[in-house]
């Protein structure tokens, strides 16, 4: 059992916590967060040691490793503290907000020979893994075009993300750092890191302080071209939908969460695949996991972290070094955009007042949720009615 400390029990942190606790080799023994009410809940419901200070946690909890799932701007400091203390580190994506910082973390981890991993979970999805394998094995010949896309509904209203870190550039908010980085890392995973970003535009749909869309054009060392298109304000998608298409001299491969479709040109075959379309589904391509929550990939990546702690990291998992490559691409996209015509203002965060009660009720309605208010009374009324109906 490896003793794990987790910092940042938000949306992602609670999922990591549940998966780690169900894992045969990981035991999350300590939790750190900056919000007292979160820690109170953890203590009372889960009975874990809780800390307001990360430093105190790593000093006192006798840990083997940490999981860092705080907002992105805090990653660099927390990861460095953990590495210096000799701990294995799993950090949520993106690793940091600067390629130089990420490279420095990668160097420290390498120097101390510590397990290090970044939460790019697409690397653990069977369809994307198969795509990477096929491309590397030369199934589609020489690659000349890689296309990566992601769409979803993260920000769906003006002032969306209002008071959260997602609406603040300096904290790692915006579609580029929070969303596009997943696709960038996936493209790197499948086809290697581009050598140059030749064009980039960031755009806004709802947001005012960050971008909601990212479009970019890459060059690869072999002359191949990359195209990136991401939009986190696309209500047509129920949840984040990521895909990659790779075009080669012998054929092409399209992959998303559900399927991996290989097309081989006439006269070409590879392994058991003939020319024409070869379609395989996730049901066939995904390795099972011992505990499932939200998708095999989330468990598989922590499985890998446990393996890395045991000294058996696999080359397919994202490390600090590969995440630093993704951060470099992100940085270049921002720079190319800024050098272009009339860059979208992505500077000072809009100051947003705390929402009023009416605004909150309206917000709940926007998402199709119902405010339950102080409506214990309503609930009781409904319940009584039902009981009446049944008896």
């Amino acid at each position, binding site marked *: 059992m490896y003793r794990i400390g987790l910092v940042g029990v938000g949306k992602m942190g609670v999922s990591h916590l549940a998966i780690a606790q169900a894992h045969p080799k990981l035991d999350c023994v300590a939790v750190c967060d900056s919000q007292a009410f979160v820690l109170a809940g953890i203590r009372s419901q889960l009975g874990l040691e809780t800390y307001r200070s990360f430093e105190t946690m790593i000093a006192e909890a006798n840990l083997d490793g940490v999981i860092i799932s705080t907002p992105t701007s805090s990653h660099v400091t927390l990861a460095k503290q953990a590495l210096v203390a000799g701990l294995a580190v799993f950090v949520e994506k993106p690793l940091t907000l600067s390629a130089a910082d990420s490279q420095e973390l990668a160097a420290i981890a390498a120097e101390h020979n510590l397990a290090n991993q970044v939460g790019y979970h697409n690397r653990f999805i069977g369809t994307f893994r198969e795509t990477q394998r096929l491309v590397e094995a030369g199934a589609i010949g020489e690659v000349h075009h890689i296309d990566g896309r992601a769409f979803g509904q993260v920000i769906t209203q003006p002032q969306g993300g209002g008071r959260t870190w997602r609406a603040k550039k300096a904290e790692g908010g915006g579609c580029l750092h929070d969303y596009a980085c997943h696709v960038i890392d996936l493209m790197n995973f499948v086809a290697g890191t581009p050598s140059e970003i030749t064009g980039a535009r960031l755009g806004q749909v709802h947001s005012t302080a960050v971008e909601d869309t990212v479009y970019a054009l890459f060059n690869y060392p072999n002359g191949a071209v990359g195209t990136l298109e991401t939009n986190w304000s696309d209500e047509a998608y129920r949840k984040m939908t990521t895909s990659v298409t790779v075009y080669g001299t012998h054929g092409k491969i399209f992959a998303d969460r559900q399927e991996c479709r290989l097309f081989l040109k006439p006269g070409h075959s590879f392994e058991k695949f003939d020319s024409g379309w070869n379609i395989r589904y996730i049901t066939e391509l995904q390795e099972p996991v011992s505990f499932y929550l939200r998708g095999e990939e989330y468990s598989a990546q922590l499985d890998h972290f446990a393996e890395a702690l045991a000294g058996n990291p696999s080359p397919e998992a994202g490390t600090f070094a590969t995440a630093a490559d993704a951060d470099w691409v992100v940085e270049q996209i921002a720079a190319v955009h800024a050098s272009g015509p009339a860059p979208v203002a992505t500077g000072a965060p809009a100051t947003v007042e705390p929402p009023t009660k009416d605004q909150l009720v309206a917000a709940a309605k926007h998402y199709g949720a119902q405010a339950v208010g*102080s409506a214990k009374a309503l609930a009781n009324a*409904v319940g009584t009615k039902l*009981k009446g109906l049944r008896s």
Partner: protein
Amino acid sequence: MTAIDRILFGDNQFFGVNHMSEEKARAQQMRFRDTEAIISVLDRAYDRGIRSFMCTTHDEIGKIADYVAANPTKYEGFKFLPGMPYAHKYANMVGEMGMVDTLKALTPGGLVDAMVRGAKSTVTRDLNELMTMLVDAEMARFSQVDTPVVFLQNVVADMVLGLRSYDLLGAFAEHVKSQFGAEAGFFTMNMPLMVDALHSVGIEEPIVCCNYNKIGFRMSGGIEAYDRALAEKPMRCIAMSVLASGAIPPAEALEWVCERPGIESIVFGASSDANIASTVGLINDFDQRRLTPA
């Protein structure tokens, strides 16, 4: 103990959920743009003898519940088995608004304010109250129809399972019993673990709904572990994803699942009368064959 029908009708096909293909999911969502289209499929299922609709708490389902309630003779004996929460809306809210504002938006009465201010001694009580309030809100749209079993969706149930906060599962069961006279059911992708957890909070024969398919898709721990749990541990098991999203041909998939006597019910989704009829027919045939001595 509430009897659960052998065959339950699911609702994934109406809402653009397809684990195999985004395109198929989209095509289905187009077809079921309006409530009427869904109702007409439900009517076909009713004609084929199906009386239980295992559904989400999607807004659209609320309209269907209203329609069924307004036509009691047409839907004699028809039951809803709702599963909550409809998690995407909450996940989207948390992403866009943050945890605290989401909770405040859901409970403008001030409960969360008090929690955030840190009345620490009452956190457990507050969490339980929050849970019951959210459940009640999701149940409001079913107030006029029969809901013998109320399910907790696997995103939440398995999260709580992983966190080992089993008391919350027990609290959910108690609440749906006392408030709605219903039995609690639990969706899970981790059936053997879930059943142990439910036993540990005193639910003796828990209703669990889990994947059960010939290729072991999303059966954490594997088919053998599932079969062993099914044979050894008291539970009432509903099999879902029997066709593994279409990876197994229907007859083969259903035959395999019908050979497992421990499985009480099978939930399936279909959009055409032909598919409904053939699924119901196959299950009945395989059941018949198993029950008839050779």
